[in-house]
């Protein structure tokens, strides 16, 4: 018997996997909507915590999905969520890779590539704003987000520096308020 929870996890994330053009950042609003609003798996605050933890770890940011699975159903949940978010998009990438390398000189391949760029770009921008709405509760956290964004745009140094500084500032602020 497979618990209903695991089936729900597999269904929700396998569908998300297929529409996640632009990666986890682009589908973050939809992940939040599914996990918090539609499925009611956790509160907005718990979701924000998991989001923060997954951002503190290295690797592809879809590990947020693995972490959600782990939180909901332990190791089995972790495995099911990870496979559900990976298998559909990776299978598509596998097929697309073979198709593109075979027909790379065709006009429709070029048009498709070009046409998807603005959609992906708009979605990532939307994610940044949606993440700020979830993460920023006051003037200080808003300032940290804006300062990090400015650092990323104008510097090619590792953004780890900006994030570490923001984290340090937010801890230090505890002792001055």
């Amino acid at each position, binding site marked *: 018997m497979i618990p209903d929870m695991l089936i729900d996890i597999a269904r929700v994330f396998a*569908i998300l996997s297929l*529409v*996640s*053009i*632009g*990666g*986890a950042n682009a589908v973050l609003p939809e992940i939040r909507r599914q996990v918090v609003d539609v499925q009611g798996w956790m509160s907005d605050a718990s979701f924000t*915590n*998991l989001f923060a*933890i997954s*951002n503190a*770890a*290295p*690797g*592809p940011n*879809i*590990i947020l999905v693995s*972490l959600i699975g*782990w939180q909901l159903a332990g190791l089995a949940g972790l495995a099911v969520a990870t496979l559900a978010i990976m298998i*559909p*998009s*990776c299978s*598509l990438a*596998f097929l697309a*890779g073979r198709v593109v390398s075979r027909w790379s000189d065709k006009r429709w391949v070029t*048009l498709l*590539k*070009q*046409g*998807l*760029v*603005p*959609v992906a*770009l*708009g*979605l990532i*921008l*939307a994610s*940044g*704003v*949606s*993440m*700020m709405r*979830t*993460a*920023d*509760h006051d003037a200080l*956290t808003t300032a*940290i*987000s*804006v300062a990090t*964004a*400015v650092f*990323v745009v104008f510097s090619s140094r590792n*953004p780890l520096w900006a*994030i570490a500084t*923001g*984290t340090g*500032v937010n801890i230090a602020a*505890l002792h001055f308020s």
Partner: protein
Amino acid sequence: MTNQQDPADDVRHTVSKSELFLGFLKIGLLGFGGIAPWARHVIIEERRWLTDKEFAAILGIGQILPGPNTMNAAVMIGDRFQGVPGVLLCLLGQMAMPLVIVTSLASIYQHFATIPEVKAAVVGAAAGAAGLVLGTALKMARKIRLAPRALVVAAMAFVAIGLLAWPLVPVVAALVPLGIAAAALERRA
């Protein structure tokens, strides 16, 4: 750095299964806040599996497909050198360390979540990560320099998802044909 020499001479034509696994293990371990720069470092600078041009093309295709572009790139690179077993080893390598680290962090966090400093650190890091995504999108927008029609499509995607919080699937389904139409009109013009 670009030069006139054919860089293909410097590039490896075979990469073994264990090299693929260990290379992507390292990329996964290093990749804080977006793994594309680390993937480039390991794959091109360090190990010379691909040229910059080949890598950019693979990342570009990865970007327009569903899923993280770096994960899609791992699939295509694995397939190129070792077929299906290569794909599986690249994906396993890329996910192994991040999964161990994220679950360890989550376990520690549950024990220390009541300490105010820990809470402040997590909140501060989340605010920084939000800024990282916003900044990355702005940087990409600056570099890609969309044509006017494409810019409208990007703005529609931003407003629908970022401001109106509409569900993703119908928005993407409606905007992808518009994006392709914009690209086709741009070429005819």
